[in-house]
């Protein structure tokens, strides 16, 4: 991009001397192009080694009869794909993953935005509040899941003592006992773990909005709500879009939290699509081919979804 911009203008500016200058410019352009390629090379190399090659291997696996113990036994397409899509848990897993993604994204971003607005003003306590919002992000997702596993355990949970003491509930509450409770308990964990992180991203966006825009709004007599809706939200759109893409992609690929907290239960009600990939490969059917086929399907879905989100983002910029 940068090179085409810089090479195009000079000839039009000094037209008469064009023939004499041209070789020098081309040489410089070539050197720049080479330089650009050099800068990009490490990233490209990493991309090839750690993304393109694995994807090709997974693709090969997905069209092969490839058992965990038996290895590659030759071509098996499209059976791997039809079998993966015919799995009794496939559609429930897709539906659950989408539901989880929508719920998480809405709650997480809403809360993160509210938190960012609260800590944006530099007050006496803002540094303390900011830090305390951010602390959970320092914990790994697996560790956080284990922590919540203990908190939700009917035998060990401190919540139950509180509920009993306040008289809200006599019997111990089973936080993961029903499909809905398992979903909301996991959402609570993820919100606790990630809200601070998204707050930070949005805070950066908020602080990049120039103060004079707000000043102008104030002079025009805009109310707080009007300022938020007409100024803050539109100017925060790039940050919000970034957070949405991160959050949606992360939620669609959810695994750790469910693997540790619910193991997909109760009654397979919280099986996400990545968990299904895992269980096809390592829990019972031990069929790497079918698991790879499902991974390819998920990858395709993610590419389409991200393309749509990026297009939407670019459309907003043009408007």
């Amino acid at each position, binding site marked *: 991009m940068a090179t085409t911009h810089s090479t195009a203008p000079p000839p039009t500016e000094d037209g008469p001397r064009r023939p004499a200058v041209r070789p020098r410019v081309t040489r410089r352009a070539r050197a720049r192009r080479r330089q650009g390629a050099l800068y990009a090379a490490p990233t490209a190399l990493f991309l090839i080694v750690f993304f393109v090659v*694995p994807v090709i291997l997974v693709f090969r696996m997905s069209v092969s009869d490839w058992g965990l*113990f038996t*290895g590659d036994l030759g071509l098996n397409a499209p059976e791997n794909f039809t079998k993966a899509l015919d799995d009794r848990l496939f559609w429930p897993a897709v539906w659950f993953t989408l539901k989880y993604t929508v719920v998480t994204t809405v709650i997480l971003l809403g809360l993160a935005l509210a938190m960012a607005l609260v800590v944006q003003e530099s007050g006496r306590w803002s540094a303390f509040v900011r830090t305390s919002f951010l602390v959970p992000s320092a914990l790994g997702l697996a560790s956080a899941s284990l922590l919540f596993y203990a908190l939700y*355990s009917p*035998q060990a949970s401190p919540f139950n003592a509180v509920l009993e003491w306040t008289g809200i509930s006599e019997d111990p509450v*089973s936080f993961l006992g029903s499909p809905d409770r398992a979903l909301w308990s996991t959402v609570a964990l993820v919100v606790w773990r990630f809200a601070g992180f998204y707050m930070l991203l949005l805070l950066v966006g908020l602080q990049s909005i120039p103060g004079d825009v707000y000043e102008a709004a104030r002079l025009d007599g805009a109310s707080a709500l009007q300022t938020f809706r007409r100024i803050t939200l539109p100017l925060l759109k790039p940050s919000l879009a970034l957070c949405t893409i991160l959050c949606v992609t992360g939620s669609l690929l959810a695994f750790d939290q469910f693997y540790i907290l*619910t193991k997909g*239960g109760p009654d397979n009600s919280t099986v996400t699509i990545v968990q299904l990939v895992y269980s096809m*490969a390592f*829990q019972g059917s031990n069929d790497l081919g079918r698991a790879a086929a499902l991974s390819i399907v998920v990858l395709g879905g993610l590419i389409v979804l991200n393309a749509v989100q990026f297009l939407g983002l670019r459309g907003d910029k043009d408007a």
Partner: protein
Amino acid sequence: MTAALGACGGGSDGPAATGDASNVEGVDDGTTLTLWTRAPLEAQANLLVDAYNASHDNQVELTVVPNDDYVAKVGAAAGSGDLPDLFAADVVYLPNWTSAGLFSDITERIGNLDYADQINPAVLDAGTYEDQQYVLPFVLDLSVMFYNKDLYREAGLDPEQGPTTLTEFRDQALAVQALNKPDTYGTYFGGNCGGCGVFTWFPMLWASGEEVLEDDGTTANLASDTAQDVYGIWRDLEDAGAIAPGAADETGATWTAAFQEGQIGVMPYPATLLQTADETVDVGVTAIPGIDGGTSTFVGGDGLGISKDSDTPDQAWNFMQWLMSEDAQVEVLAANNVTPARADFLDNSYATDPRVQLINEVSTAADSQTPIALNFQQAFNAVGSPWSTLFRNQVFGDASTLEADNEAITEALQQ
């Protein structure tokens, strides 16, 4: 690693080296052998390996793999031809692993042992595929009924007499529940753990004279009248509120905890935890009964085999045959309260505790079994398996789906 998988995946050219099968004792020449096992057996495996290394020139290097990663790790190694010399497998996975050719055939070597007929037959059968034998018992893990003698005394039950029928089991659990003590419940079970259900409920069916699997492990027989009676016992306990809270969510990680904390009256339990539970609870032990009596246990634990990739099968066999010796079975396993896998060692100098004697006896009882099915993991042990759907419906949900749930297990078995 994946590239290596591709290169070697098709290479099923049999074992790397066959060795001399007629050599009964194997070779002890200072070779380093590798051995893999899963974390739940770490303590016993360490004891065995230390004892072997101290008395032999061969040295065994033990690798302990987290339980949930074990299948994946063995699978990856099998594909790339990197399996260790020796590795253990959960008995219920043995049919699948032997049929995939992960182990070397040791039929002749076992046949040469003059005590071959004393080795625990349930594990040997599980490790036999198409009339070829592939494993010996590594560490046995049996299921028995544990009860809390203190709670039995409080409830007016005889602390020296555990349940001898499932009806008594239910009534005794209800009696403990009737104490109405805080944090004290009649019984507990892993209500969201297929493996726990297999381990503790199958013996109830076997002791009642019912088979669980038919047609070489391709048909499930879990909707019979006897099976319904067994589910009915648990349903009664659930309806009476005599099962400790959290059973429905119990994925197996903590299913043995509540009993050790003294909160449970009576429940089926792994025999290997007798010592541990005895530290906090006055434990009574009895065999798992059927509806009207009988006794049975799930002969669980791991089998050990020589891998297809071992370059030193004679040296590996030296460890295997030592594992069956008195030095290992009595001086290591029995001394640490693990049931010996040889019938002629069940009555040994360490088995002085009548509870240990009972556990040892039940390991070879007529109705004690290891279930054999090629797709066992998928049908029973896997998270959210059709088996866990079945027993959850029977205890917590809509019990009328029994036939369909049983059919779903058969489907998984035949996949």
